[in-house]
């Protein structure tokens, strides 16, 4: 047994988190900043933060993750990190020549109260920021929220710094994406193109974190939302924000600053959330739903009906970020599956009403917990009490899967023990088919293994 000390007897905890289902803000800010073209993320704190975030993002995406750090020492922790940040800004522009440096803070620089706006102004006053280049920032105290909050804060920071309303409305639609894989962002762009809607996607990590092998390391790969588009986002006629936790704040900021109205929707995971996304695209883009999209939807429905007998009534445990869990739960319910256990370490009081709505009349059959002590240890204890048929979540389900012999679909962040996941989407109708294929595939493999002595007929 790998998690041999986990038992089903639940003792109340108020202070101890065991096997968390969230991590800290700055990593989200770093990921979001990588979705901006020619942008170098910068971590204002100790070296370790930057090193840990780069390592974790690298392990997930299997791509270079470039970012700077202010390399705090004991002295800077006492006297403030201004000197370190100024030096870092100067060094990064000189050595790595980004168009944008996107600074996020850490628990260290937040606790001592470094004022990034003031330090950036000083850098500008001292001519450390070359003409036409930008230094942007957001505050990401690690002791508030989760990695999703950090992502949301950086996206909001990006919008606040760049979007401009020039008075001339364009026909474009902004799509602010929650934290998904580069392949998902690519899929969102593809679907929009298929629909004939001209979008600005922000952030956009496709072609950044799935860059091709060419024999050359492009320090700034070709992808990422461009500064031109970030500015132009202020003239778009509408914004579609995909995921309340990751994008709502940015959508509000964009509306406040540039009067671009927004619609808040879920990430298009599963059938009905994708339907809503497609409807939003049609409505705000002023287009009809494309035939090709109808075909895609039809193919998904076809796969669902083909698979229904295997999915019906299956108990599922899922964990991860609220923006993933809500549409995913809705989809599982649509499939007549039972999402019985749901855990998210990310706080936010909207979680309960939203997940209840997604679960519909099944809500009372589901055990869910979010925020403090909503962790993988608790999830495992629930599973020990009454097992499930399928696990869906990030890498940290693997030991539960092995100990309890439960099929496991890796989805979300981080996935450290698989390669290739960032190349195929989970969003859209196609993404839903992928989820079904993966779920049924691993369930059947597991069934076949346990029935090795008694061959089954499929």
């Amino acid at each position, binding site marked *: 047994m790998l998690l*041999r000390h986990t038992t089903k007897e639940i003792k109340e905890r108020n202070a*101890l988190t*065991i096997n968390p289902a969230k991590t800290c803000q700055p990593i989200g800010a770093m990921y979001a900043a990588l979705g901006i073209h020619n942008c170098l993320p910068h971590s204002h704190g100790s070296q370790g933060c930057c090193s840990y975030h780069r*390592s974790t993002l690298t392990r997930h995406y299997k791509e270079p993750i*470039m970012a700077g750090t202010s*390399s705090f020492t004991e002295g800077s922790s006492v006297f403030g990190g201004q000197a370190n940040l100024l030096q870092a800004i100067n060094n990064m522009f000189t050595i790595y020549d980004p168009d944008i440096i996107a600074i996020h803070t850490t628990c260290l620089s937040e606790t001592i109260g470094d004022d990034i706006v003031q330090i950036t102004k000083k850098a500008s006053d001292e001519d450390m920021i070359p003409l036409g280049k930008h230094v942007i920032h957001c505050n990401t105290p690690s002791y508030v929220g989760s990695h999703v909050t950090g992502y949301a804060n950086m996206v909001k920071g990006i919008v606040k710094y760049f979007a401009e309303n020039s008075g001339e409305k364009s026909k474009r639609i902004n799509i602010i994406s929650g934290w998904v894989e580069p392949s998902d962002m690519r899929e969102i762009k593809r679907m929009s193109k298929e629909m004939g809607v001209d979008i600005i996607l922000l952030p956009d990590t496709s072609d950044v974190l799935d860059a091709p092998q060419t024999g050359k390391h492009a320090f700034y790969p070709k992808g990422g939302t461009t500064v031109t588009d970030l500015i132009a986002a202020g003239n778009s006629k509408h914004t579609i924000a995909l995921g309340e936790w990751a994008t709502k704040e940015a959508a509000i900021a964009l509306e406040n600053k540039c009067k671009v109205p927004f619609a808040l929707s879920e990430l298009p995971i599963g059938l009905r959330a994708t339907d809503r996304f497609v409807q939003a695209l049609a409505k705000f883009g002023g287009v009809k739903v494309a035939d090709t999209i109808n075909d895609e939807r039809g193919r998904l429905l076809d796969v669902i009906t083909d698979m229904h007998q295997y999915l019906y009534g299956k108990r599922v445990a899922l964990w991860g970020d609220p923006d993933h869990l809500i549409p995913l739960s809705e989809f599982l319910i649509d499939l007549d599956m039972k999402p019985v256990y749901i855990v998210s370490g990310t706080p936010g009081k909207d979680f309960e009403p939203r997940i209840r709505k997604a679960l519909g009349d099944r809500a009372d059959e589901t055990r869910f917990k979010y925020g403090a002590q909503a962790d993988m240890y608790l999830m495992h204890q629930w599973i020990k009490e009454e097992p499930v048929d399928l696990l869906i979540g990030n890498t940290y389900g693997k030991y539960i899967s092995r100990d309890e012999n439960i099929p496991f679909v890796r989805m979300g962040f981080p996935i450290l023990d698989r390669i290739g996941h960032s190349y195929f989407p989970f969003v859209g109708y196609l993404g839903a088919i992928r989820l079904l294929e993966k779920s049924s595939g691993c369930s059947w493999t597991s069934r076949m293994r346990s029935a090795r002595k008694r061959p089954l007929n499929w």
Partner: protein
Amino acid sequence: MDSKKINFKDPAEIKEEILQKYPRKVAMKRAKSMVANDTEQAKEIQSNVRTIPGIITQRGCTYAGCKGVVLGPTRDVINLTHGPIGCGYYSWLTRRNQTNTPSQDPNDKIDGENYIPYCFSTDMQDENIVFGGEKKLMEAIREAYEIFKPKAISVFSTCPIGLIGDDVHQVARAASEELGINVFGFSCEGYRGVSQSAGHHIANNGLLTHVVGRNDNGPEGKFKVNLLGEYNIGGDAFVLEQMFEELGITLISTFSGNSTITAFEQAHTADLNMVMCHRSINYIAEMMETKYGIPWIKINFIGADATAKSLRKMAVYFDDSELSAKVEAYIGKNMEIAEKVRSEVVKTTKGKLAMMFVGGSRAHHYQDLFEELEMPTIAAGYEFAHRDDYEGRQVLPGIKVDADSRNIEEISVSADPERYKPRKTEEQMAMLESKGFKFSDYEGMMAQMSNNALVIDDITHWETEKLVEYFQPAIFCAGIKEKYAVQKMGVPLKQLHSYDYGGPYAGFEGVINFYKEIERMVGTKIWQLIKAPWQGEPEIVGTVGMEI
């Protein structure tokens, strides 16, 4: 000059090219950390100094060195991170320390303690930062005890802890008294020191203060040793444990691969400390010599020759003809097997260039393996080492202690009134030394390297890219953060932190694994397929066309 050594071209040109890019002050500082090795005259290299903000470094923090490296591989202690969630999360199962948990009782289905797959954190929130986190820490320790009943709990401080002034040591003492188990804390905030290295030192101090020497009933044996600075990445410790068993050596404890708190507590009963990673663990070797009278020697079980040499050194120390005979037989048998593989592999590897920038000992140890593969190391350096790891321990008295190092506590240790016992008489020690046996010594990386090989401390990303571009090595060894950038340049990167999920690479079994792994990496044709037939040079088009 040693026959294995090469006289490389003076790297002044590339050094100049690298430095040109930097702002003046940065260039001046970096220049001192980039040295062309001189086999005739020892050179000084700047190391263990602050990383320049914004240069993109490999380095991590003190917490990573303390919790992640030194205490991470110990299975029967609850390692509780006191701070916001991230630090605990990122050090959760990421160093690939394996452990082998024997059943406590053969009739019992419940296995022994192993908390390594778990992550424990106080997950501090803003109100804890404002009002202090000591109460939450105490409660978290109680909850951990209530649920798991461990024999020990250790607490690791993250950046905000020192700033808000939580006294983790006081809380640990109170918890120890209340719960009747060993609870101890580390002030390993990430901002201390200049790298992970500070964390190793803090961990060494804490282990000696709170753990070593608490249990006098260690296992009996004729030849009792501790292995220091071995972290069981990819199962290295399992190979070495097996080796010791075969040789009749009693391994009291390993710091800290596949280790237990109980074994640490008994470490003072060993008669020899063998130091593998000098950087991370030399402090405790020194302190154990002063406190308990255990001499230490530097050894290296990475590489066939190095393993043989280290085993012989150990045998000389114990001065026992039966042991020496066993060691010789063991070496003879295993050398033959390794040589068979080597002689095949070397056909692919011979003459290809290697580079390694990693750790505080690995960038040295692995040069032994590359020598056996007949791959010259053109450039190397450490991520967090000190001058003595490069230049040898003789430079120790001359190293200027700067403010960052002074901030790391030096604990004063004296001979234990009951447990101090010299393992050899002064005459015996002198006798061994007169025969060239070296106690408490480490030569450093540079003594082994070729003339004009480039030695770079705390290499930056810019320097990494320039080196790869300039030297076009056949293989680059570093860590996960460097891996994909270097590979995008068409050069395979071997991770020497996590072993790319491979290993073990220690001992003779490891040697064979490593030979084959490098053969795979430098022998594959995959890198030549990067260009599509319509993009490449004519000969590549031809080759691909023929295969189709």
